[in-house]
């Protein structure tokens, strides 16, 4: 039984161009993925953590919102423990939400400015454990605040009284307070100072060890993904183009993944000025065939005609490329 699996997921947005004409923007297009947490149990602290990387506009945030069911998929099916949840109304989703939590990039915006810490943290407790008494809730809140590194006697405070790093910890506390199995993190380490980023990544690892939380880290920050995750999914133009183990970065096959890895500067200053030419494609008009072919250095004739199919090349490695 797979924990969470999506088949041919797609999400399109429509913008009106002119009076009658509508333009379709395919943010996510025909994505299938399985997140299997059962096999990962007891197999080391980082296993079961998956990274989802890609450029901005590649659809990774939309995909994160689809599989956290904050958006309804336009096409395809989403199953949570063998139950289809793609079309369920909000109130039927409680068991799913109980185990799959999300944290967002902008922690400050994800906290209601008019709620105190106590109110923020008791919201999930009230929803998922309606029988809990206030005293029990306060105990749990104090406990979790200590665990994410916040001072437990601050629960009377408002979000704006905390620093940026503390707000992030608060957002994490709200997500893990109900002990979810999967935590979807949307760009949570982007744009942070290295020290803060390091603190957060370590907090994730620690919480993973202690509570068995697994992560789906959506990020364009490769070092962070490599640090936290065992498996990496690469997205390009709304599709998953490669799925491979993080330890085997060098074994990546898809030219886009390789370009991504090569454009990452390294600390020893040995940065080779090789980079991907061109711009990410416009989601309202993807190129025909393989969406990457206009920027690909190894393209063949077939690439511009036929879209490649996602194939397994090894047990834990798959890619969508004609070259394999």
């Amino acid at each position, binding site marked *: 039984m797979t924990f969470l699996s999506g088949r041919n997921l797609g999400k399109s947005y429509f913008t009106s161009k002119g009076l009658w004409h509508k333009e379709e923007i395919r943010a996510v297009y025909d994505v299938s993925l399985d997140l299997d947490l059962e096999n990962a149990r007891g197999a080391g602290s980082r296993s079961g953590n998956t990274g989802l990387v890609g450029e*901005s506009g590649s659809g990774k945030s939309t995909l994160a919102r689809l599989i956290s069911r904050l958006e309804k998929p336009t096409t395809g099916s989403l199953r949570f423990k063998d139950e289809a949840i793609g079309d369920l109304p909000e109130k039927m989703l409680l068991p799913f939400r109980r185990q799959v939590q999300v944290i967002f990039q902008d922690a400050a915006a994800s906290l209601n400015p008019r709620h105190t810490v106590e109110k923020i943290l008791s919201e999930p407790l009230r929803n998922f454990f309606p029988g809990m008494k206030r005293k029990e809730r306060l105990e749990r809140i104090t406990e979790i605040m200590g665990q994410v590194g916040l001072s437990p006697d601050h629960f009377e405070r408002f979000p704006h009284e905390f620093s940026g790093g503390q707000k992030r910890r608060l957002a994490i506390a709200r997500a893990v307070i109900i002990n979810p199995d999967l935590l979807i993190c949307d760009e949570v380490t982007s744009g942070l*100072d290295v*020290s803060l980023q390091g*603190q957060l990544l*370590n907090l994730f690892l620690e919480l993973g060890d202690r509570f068995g939380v697994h992560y789906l880290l959506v990020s364009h920050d490769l070092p962070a993904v490599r640090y936290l995750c065992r498996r990496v999914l690469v997205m390009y133009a709304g599709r998953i183009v490669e799925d491979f183990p993080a330890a085997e970065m060098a074994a990546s096959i898809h030219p886009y993944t390789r370009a991504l890895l090569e454009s990452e500067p*390294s600390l*020893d200053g040995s*940065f080779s000025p*090789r980079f991907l030419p061109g*711009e990410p494609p416009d989601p309202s008009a993807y190129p025909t065939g393989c969406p990457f072919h206009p920027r690909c250095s190894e393209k063949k004739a077939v690439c511009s005609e036929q879209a490649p199919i996602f194939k397994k090349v090894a047990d834990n490695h798959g890619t969508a490329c004609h070259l394999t």
Partner: protein
Amino acid sequence: MKEGRCLALIGESGAGKSITALSLLRIVPPPGKITGGEVILDNRDLLKLGKEEMRLVRGEELALVFQDSLSTFNPVRTVGGHICETINAHRRLPNGQAKEMALEKMADLGLPAGRVFRSFPFQLSGGMRQRAALAMALCLHPRILITDEATTSLDVTLQAQVLHYLKKHLEDCCMSILFITHDLAAAAAVADQVAVIYAGRIVEKGQLKKVFKQPLHPYTQALLRSHPSFCPGTLKPIQGSPPDLALLPEGCSFYPRCPEAAGICLSRVPEMLEVDSGRQVACHLVKSAILTKGEIAAS
């Protein structure tokens, strides 16, 4: 800073990186004020120049690129209009010639020059816009380019593009870059010199490769230990957050977060110490370590 070199200024947010850049250009927003010191460019102290002279220095000799390229440009004007305006503010050129210069610069940066010239800022992607901002800064061939977190919000692939062109420019046209960032890896990619700033003071300075390989100041060490690609095992990030610049601790401003802080760190501000040629550190511990080493050698 030396000609033709790139100095990276790294530190956490709130450490005073950006204010340093603005001070160099003398555009510190009120209520800030430059309280002392001097900025020497070719033996001239910029802080003593008149307003009009300073205006000419900005753009012509010192140019600045910001992090947020969308707000750098006025949304109702074309990119080309912006660049021509910058050129015309300094040189009286016939219209066509300014345009030619702008197009040339944009082509240098790998942009489809004709299209970008006519575009409005919001029509460009983030990477193109940042390169257009770079073109605007570079169009007058400044002596020194200051980039303030110019690649921070970009994707790796786009960041690599910008870094590539920065590096290329550095080599082609005898120019210096002050590369301000909190991204250690990006700094390592372009810079050859590095200065680490903490709470408004430079704490370590030297050749980038040496500093990153063998950091001396505990803050630099901690900063590097926080970076996932520097230490593959478990990260050991600095605890706590940078101090409030209004309430700096007495003595060394880093001691509350320093794992090795000793008695002297609490009371006295450490001064810059030259440990090697071009390598400077401001730390009591390094100083005493060197002194003991010296004593041993002497005995």
